[in-house]
């Protein structure tokens, strides 16, 4: 169902938005609510719209209950939990006609703050909690938990599921468990006694979440780094990437402690800035460890000089860019895909970097592992670009799986035994004619020593200012870029439709594109689809471009960066490409895509 349309009675197809104040503990109440749907077997998508602030500013959390399993924002609000007086007016206006708004009726509400075409439900949450709980802090916290009870009654959520979830969360804190249970019952009972429960929207138990988890992309990325065998993580805290290292730290403390000595099989360094974080990653990568740094746009800017060094001196490194709204500080708690160009050509001089674009947390896990393999195989920095939407929101994904027979690809590394047998070793010789030279780890063998430099060097690794020698090296690097195409993941391609109109998209747009295609197919518009998963673009991308006459490029930035990259790096006729751009900082929804494509097609018909 598309937004703008009047909302009506529906099972497992509605969106709840909770408007609250930052720092009041609403996150755990919202998570509890979302998990409850998930545990009833109903697919959900959670989106957190939070301010760059610790306490006091407005914050919204949105739960889309979606029996069809769509992963993106619906763009519509059916049920608003208006817990923030400051934003009440806007929240009221945002409810779709036919929807409902729940507010805290402890305080009187101005009579103008109502709408006829929606149902308004007042629950004296603060009053009930003030009577029940003693301390100011617990009154604020429990008010949030109480609304979970209200919603549970109104939507017919299974209270057993909620109780189980609470038991799990507070397994070791019995007093908190009791208080939370009391608060939930307060809300639940009040709603049952005062309103016709359930509403026209109901949560109906389903079986669509079996074999799935709810996980955020940063956690999945961190898990990927653990499974890839990364041992050195250097970073500078920056939203929205910070939780990558938080999660990596916590996984390492669980799974990377040497049993005998109690010592760490990892080293995590909080650097003084992103320049330093990047330097540490290069130092560790050069020295034979798998090393990475999570960051966001401003960090990429600071890392750029060393990224160019890594490219030219051919040092493996993995960067995770959890993109946020730029430019400059921009809107650090809002999402965007606006670092594509900055990452593709980061640094001065002729540089190009291998990029990976996961679409969801599941892909974050697998592509993080891939990033390390590619970095070592190709001896170059690899940047995995996610974004705030993927990184910080909980997504429903298929269970993560690991093949225990998997062996990581360390690329062309000469061991001490190899070196012993060799006459001599030269770092930048193209021995195998694939433009990838051999490398050695410091300390392995006297014959393995070489000098790493960002200044001009010849194929033997020696300093040079000779044009011919310089060209031999940089031209080989260009050939290595061609070799990279054999190793990077192929795009996800769907040629289901017979016509010659298609969509190319990237990363977190995927969910919205899938949903939009379903709607468009319903109205007779079938579109093929290619989602790029890596840069350099492989032949499959060129084939798709060649096979279509009109291609919508859907991405989340103002300047059409994926579009530009396709123009630069493929042989596509520019006339065929049409940009559909979303860059307001909110996760992309299907609505805009459907409308834009309909409008564009109507234009075509009119012409």
């Amino acid at each position, binding site marked *: 169902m598309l937004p703008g349309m009047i909302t009506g009675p529906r099972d497992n197809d509605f969106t709840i938005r909770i408007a609250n104040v930052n720092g009041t503990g609403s996150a755990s109440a919202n998570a509890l609510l979302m998990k409850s749907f*998930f545990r009833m077997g109903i697919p959900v998508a959670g989106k957190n719209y939070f301010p760059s602030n610790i306490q006091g500013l407005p914050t919204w959390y949105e739960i889309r209950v979606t029996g069809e399993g769509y992963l993106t924002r619906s763009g519509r609000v059916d049920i608003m939990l208006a817990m923030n007086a400051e934003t009440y007016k806007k929240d009221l206006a945002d409810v779709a006609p036919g929807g409902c708004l729940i507010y805290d009726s402890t305080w009187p509400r101005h009579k103008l703050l109502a709408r006829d075409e929606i149902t308004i439900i007042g629950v004296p949450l603060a009053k009930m909690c003030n009577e029940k709980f003693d301390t100011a802090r617990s009154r604020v916290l429990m008010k949030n938990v109480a609304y979970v009870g209200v919603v549970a009654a109104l939507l017919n959520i299974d209270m057993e599921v909620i109780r189980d979830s609470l038991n799990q969360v507070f397994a070791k804190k019995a007093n908190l468990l009791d208080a939370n249970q009391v608060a939930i019952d307060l809300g639940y009972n009040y709603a049952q006694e005062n309103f016709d429960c359930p509403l026209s929207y109901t949560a109906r138990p389903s079986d669509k979440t079996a074999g*799935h988890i*709810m*996980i955020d992309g940063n956690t999945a990325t961190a*898990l990927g780094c*653990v*499974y890839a*065998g990364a*041992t*050195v993580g*250097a970073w500078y805290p920056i939203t929205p990437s910070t939780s990558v290292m938080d999660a990596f730290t916590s996984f390492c403390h*669980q*799974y990377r402690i*040497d049993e005998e*000595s*109690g*010592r*760490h*099989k*990892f*080293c995590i*360094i909080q*650097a*003084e800035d992103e*320049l*330093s*974080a*990047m*330097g*540490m*990653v*290069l*130092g*560790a990568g*050069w*020295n*034979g*460890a798998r*090393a990475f740094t999570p960051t966001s746009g401003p960090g990429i800017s600071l890392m750029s*000089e*060393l990224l160019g*060094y890594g490219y030219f001196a051919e040092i493996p490194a993995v960067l995770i860019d959890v993109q946020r709204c730029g430019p400059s500080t921009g809107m650090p708690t809002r999402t965007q895909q606006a670092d594509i160009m900055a990452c593709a050509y980061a640094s001065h001089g002729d540089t190009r970097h291998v990029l990976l674009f996961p679409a969801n947390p599941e892909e974050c896990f697998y592509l993080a592992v891939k990033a390390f393999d590619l970095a070592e195989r190709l001896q170059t920095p690899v940047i995995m670009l996610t974004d705030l939407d993927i990184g910080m929101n909980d997504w429903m994904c298929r*269970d*993560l*799986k*690991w*093949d*225990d027979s998997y062996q990581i690809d360390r690329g062309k590394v000469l061991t001490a035994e190899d070196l012993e047998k060799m006459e001599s070793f030269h770092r930048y010789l193209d021995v195998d004619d694939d433009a990838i030279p051999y490398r050695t*780890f*410091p*300390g392995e*063998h*006297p014959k*393995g*020593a070489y*000098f*790493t*430099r*960002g200044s001009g060097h010849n194929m033997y690794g020696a*300093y040079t200012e000779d044009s011919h020698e310089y060209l031999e090296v940089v031209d080989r690097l260009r050939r290595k870029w061609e070799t990279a195409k054999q190793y990077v993941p192929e795009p996800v391609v769907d040629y289901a439709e017979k016509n010659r109109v298609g969509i190319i998209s990237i990363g977190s747009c995927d969910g919205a594109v899938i949903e939009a295609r379903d709607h468009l197919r319903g109205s007779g518009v079938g579109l093929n689809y290619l989602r790029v998963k890596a840069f350099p673009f492989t032949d499959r991308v060129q084939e798709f471009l060649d096979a279509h006459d009109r291609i919508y490029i859907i991405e989340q930035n103002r300047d059409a960066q994926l579009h530009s990259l396709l123009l630069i790096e493929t042989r596509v006729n520019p006339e065929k490409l049409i940009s559909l751009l979303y860059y307001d900082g909110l996760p992309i929804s299907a609505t805009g895509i459907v409308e834009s494509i309909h409008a564009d097609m109507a234009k075509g018909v009119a012409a």
Partner: protein
Amino acid sequence: MSYITKPRVIHPKSPRNDLKLTVRDYEGGMSTLCAGCGHDSVTSAIVQAAFELNIPPHRMAKLSGIGCSSKTPAYFMRQSHGFNTVHGRMPSVATGANAANGSLKYIGVSGDGDTLSIGLGQFCHALRRNVDMLYVIENNGVYGLTKGQFSASADLGSTAKNGFANNQPPIDPCRMAISMGAGFVARSFSGDKEQLVPLLKAGLVHKGFAVIDVISPCVTFNDHEGSTKSYAYTRQHFHPAIQADYVPPSQEIVAQYNEGDAMPVEMHDGSKIILRKVDTDYDPTDRASVYAYLERHQAAGEIVTGMLYYNDSLLEMQDLSNIVEQPLSTLDYSQLCPGDDVLQSLQDRYR
């Protein structure tokens, strides 16, 4: 001085160290610095120190930033692994390298521009982390490769070649390092190999971040009258406060020292440094008094040199981070991947 190739001929009677290597085995490529550059003297002191310490060349990593000083790792220890990084970022690269493998010896060579201007932050933070490395600053008060601008170590009133006087106060890397908690801080002069070589040896053996600020005059841009970093000025104002002798492990202290004037300090590997006081009131283990001494003497225009401050009780980065003994870079993948069983059970929390 790069127009001839240095022949690699080793005289059969050249002295050999415990590894049967000669000094020549610790040398590098021909220097491309100006004739008479202080840095070349530092290079030969490093060669001497590494030779005498019996360091297997391939077990040493030599890192640098950008600038004249940072070119020098190409001129010593050709069999060592070199890493000429970008400007001011050597400390972070050395930190990452050390995190990956703490079993190698690390020497970082930097200059006053690379350390005190563009790289000031990284220098401070590598020091705070107590990365196990020797950090040598070849300090000449001037930017050489860009032809003669003042650096942040230029003294007040010191004049440039074009006659302009510097009007900004200098940053003294030694006082700064002491104030930030470094465990090994020394100053020397490129023209005093007798003082410098034992300091380099002690710095290479020291477990943790060792700073040696070496006044190393720039013959082309900062060796004129009016400069406070010239050879003449440095020789005139050179003030050794405390000398350090290095005694290898299992070797007896044979020299005679006067009681009270000499302080032997045992290093982690059993070697010793004997600190010989030139000024009897000097205590290199008392941070506050060292700082005050430096303030007093430097205000009087003296360049205080020697083993200025020593504290061997600090944990270096690997231990501070509680990293396993075996270098992380050599851990087998099977020791690092938790496997599918773990993955399946850990996902319960996400259901």
